[in-house]
């Protein structure tokens, strides 16, 4: 693949006592969309701000297209950043907001060039009718579209998006998410997209980097991370409903829970004590021996979530389509042993 477009090399940042980022290594290939996923306080935003040049790292390098940019001013980096909270300058119209980055010194764009870029961007994002409105007279979705417009109108070499959809309605998020995937692909500009939303991470990323407490826990394709998470912490951050995590020990090639229920076959080479990760869609409501009581049935239209108690512990089961189950029903779930993720447990807690 040649040299990566962006290389983050051994990056660390400390604020007082907190290690916001420790020893981060990351690549971003040309044209790639990398999602950085993590809970609040994981260091996602700090990482973006260092790449943008708004923070200086305590150690490590940011290399873009072979050039060390670690200590360059933001203006020299030619990256566009979409902030989570800031959307637009309230005292300017939509057009002035879009013009602002183009009028930056050193960009030296002609008047016609500026006008062309703005009309192209406005058409692309379907905000052309809004151009002369004050930024304060926009709905949440329109504002976010214009904010994204501010980023793409510049034609930068890298997009940095910091949870741009977090404060929007669910429906709007869903629509803009698909628009963003298309936009990034059509423009071909590499993008780092920071989010804590599990749906955004899986559906948008070419690759996902899972960040927790300033460290990268795993990097890989969405399939990789969803199906083969390297730790329970990673597993819990992806997928909806959340993964079932069950602590077990092995006896006679069966995994037994703490309540001594043998729930699924174990591999001969598996460790003695382990945590199992079972995705809700890999538990089937029949075919097993241990009874489970259904406590709630959530019919979501295309699929149904069953919440219940199985082997003395809560479980989530995901069924495609509608079901005939009701709260209070007893089912005998079974698990596909090939679809279970096993992590060895070394010391008792």
């Amino acid at each position, binding site marked *: 693949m040649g040299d990566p477009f962006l290389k983050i090399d051994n990056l660390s940042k400390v604020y007082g006592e907190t290690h916001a980022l420790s020893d981060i290594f990351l690549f971003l290939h040309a044209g790639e969309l990398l999602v950085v996923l993590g*809970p*609040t306080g994981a260091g996602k935003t700090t990482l973006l701000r260092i790449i943008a040049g708004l923070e200086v790292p305590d150690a490590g390098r940011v290399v873009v297209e072979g050039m060390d940019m670690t200590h360059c001013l933001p203006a020299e980096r030619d990256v566009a950043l979409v902030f989570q909270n800031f959307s637009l300058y309230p005292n300017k119209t939509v057009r002035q907001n879009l013009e602002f980055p183009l009028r930056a010194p050193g960009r030296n764009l002609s008047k016609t060039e500026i006008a062309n870029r703005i009309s192209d961007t406005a058409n692309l994002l379907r905000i052309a009718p809004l151009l002369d409105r004050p930024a304060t007279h926009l*709905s*949440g979705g329109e504002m976010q579209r214009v904010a994204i417009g501010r980023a793409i109108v510049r034609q930068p070499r890298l997009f940095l998006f910091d949870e741009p959809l977090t404060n929007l*309605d*669910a*429906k*709007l998020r*869903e629509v803009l*998410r*698909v628009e963003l*995937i*298309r936009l990034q692909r059509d423009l071909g500009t590499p993008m780092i997209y920071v989010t*804590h*939303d*599990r*749906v955004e991470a*899986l*559906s*948008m990323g070419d690759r996902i980097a899972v960040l927790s407490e300033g460290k990268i826990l795993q990097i890989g394709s*969405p*399939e990789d991370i*969803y199906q083969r998470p390297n730790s329970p912490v990673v597993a*819990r951050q*992806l*997928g*909806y*409903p*959340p993964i079932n995590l069950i602590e077990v020990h092995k006896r006679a090639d069966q995994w037994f829970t703490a309540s001594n229920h043998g729930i699924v076959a174990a591999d001969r080479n598996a460790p003695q004590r382990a945590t199992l990760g079972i*995705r*809700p*869609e890999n538990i089937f409501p029949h075919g097993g021996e241990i009874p489970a009581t259904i*406590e*709630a049935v*959530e*019919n*979501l*239209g*295309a*699929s149904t*979530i069953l*919440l219940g108690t199985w082997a003395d512990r*809560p479980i*989530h089961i*995901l069924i*495609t*389509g*509608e079901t005939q189950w009701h709260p209070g029903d007893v089912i005998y779930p079974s698990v596909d042993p090939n679809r279970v993720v096993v992590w060895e447990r070394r010391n008792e807690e």
Partner: protein
Amino acid sequence: MVSPHRATHKRETPMPFLELQNLQKTYPDGTRAVRGIDLAVDEGEFIVLLGPSGCGKTTTLRMIAGLEDPTDGQIVLGNRNVTHLPPSQRDVGFVFQFYALYPHMTAKKNIAFPLENIGTSPSDIDATIDRVARALGIEALLDQYPRQLSGGDQQRVSLARAMVRTPDVYLMDEPLGTLDAEHRLELRAFIRRQQLALSTTAIYVTHDQEEAMSLADRMVVMEGGKIKQTGSPPEIYNHPADLFVANFVGSPGMNLIDGQIVQHEDGLAFTRLGANVHIPIHLRVAPPRAILGIRPEFIRPANRGVPGKVVLGEYLGSHAYVHVDTPLGELVMHAPDRFAIGESIHLRLDEGRVCLFDPDTGMALARSAGMKDVKLYGRSISQN
């Protein structure tokens, strides 16, 4: 905890427990937030008001609570006209989106606060807190101060505080708004269990259609200050009343295709000009133009059918939404896995699950048997 008088009260009066009659709210600046809402709620029902921001759902809820004064219309609660009564005289419990905890009180004190306020005996308070804490799994946190709790735990404690009282009606304004997906399911289950156990009437406001589908006995879909449709979640999901509901409910919403209805083979079929694709319609009469709606899960990959090319895949782990460019337009399909972009595939649309809408009014055309409405459109195509 169900008070006995309420049960008898219900038998005596055939009237609904809570009734909104032509409820309206116009703000002094001229914004018409709510433009005439009629809704009858039975006792013990769980109603979810669903809609995008600005649709008037929160204003409606606040008017029921007495936090806003209606411009017009009436609110009847348990046979009493409460339209202009202050909140304190309505016996409603309001659960806010951001329900801050008192920082100088332990979790337990926080939860006890609304009960002490109405003079509940200490033993009753302890019993109630025990029950609620167990249901929410926060027994171990009771003696901690808010600053010692994680965000999710704080939200659970605040929900507990909001729900220890047993008023006539719970009014909830996106109480799970900021919560992480991991805790949403359990808190949703808690709210539902709590409401069922106390058989308290509940009105819950959200913009999240999944929350609405999973919680509601009846959903009320709102837009532009008006009710678009009222019905049980499956009713609304499967038979949306108009294009707005079809798109808003479901994630992603229904595929909507603008096209014509023509005579094809033995009956009527939906097609699109220039597309050599016909989807049989189980209607005897229909207007010449229509919008066809079909949910992503009723489109499947098949060996033959509508040809198309994959343009986008949204991988979600347990399944994927695949966007396919077809002669009918772009269709979103619910598939077990994603396909390679650019791949040529064929789609089969489940004819039995198709909805039809009038392109001019956006309203749903009557389903299969309901011929009456369709005839209004005049020309019967089957006679051509």
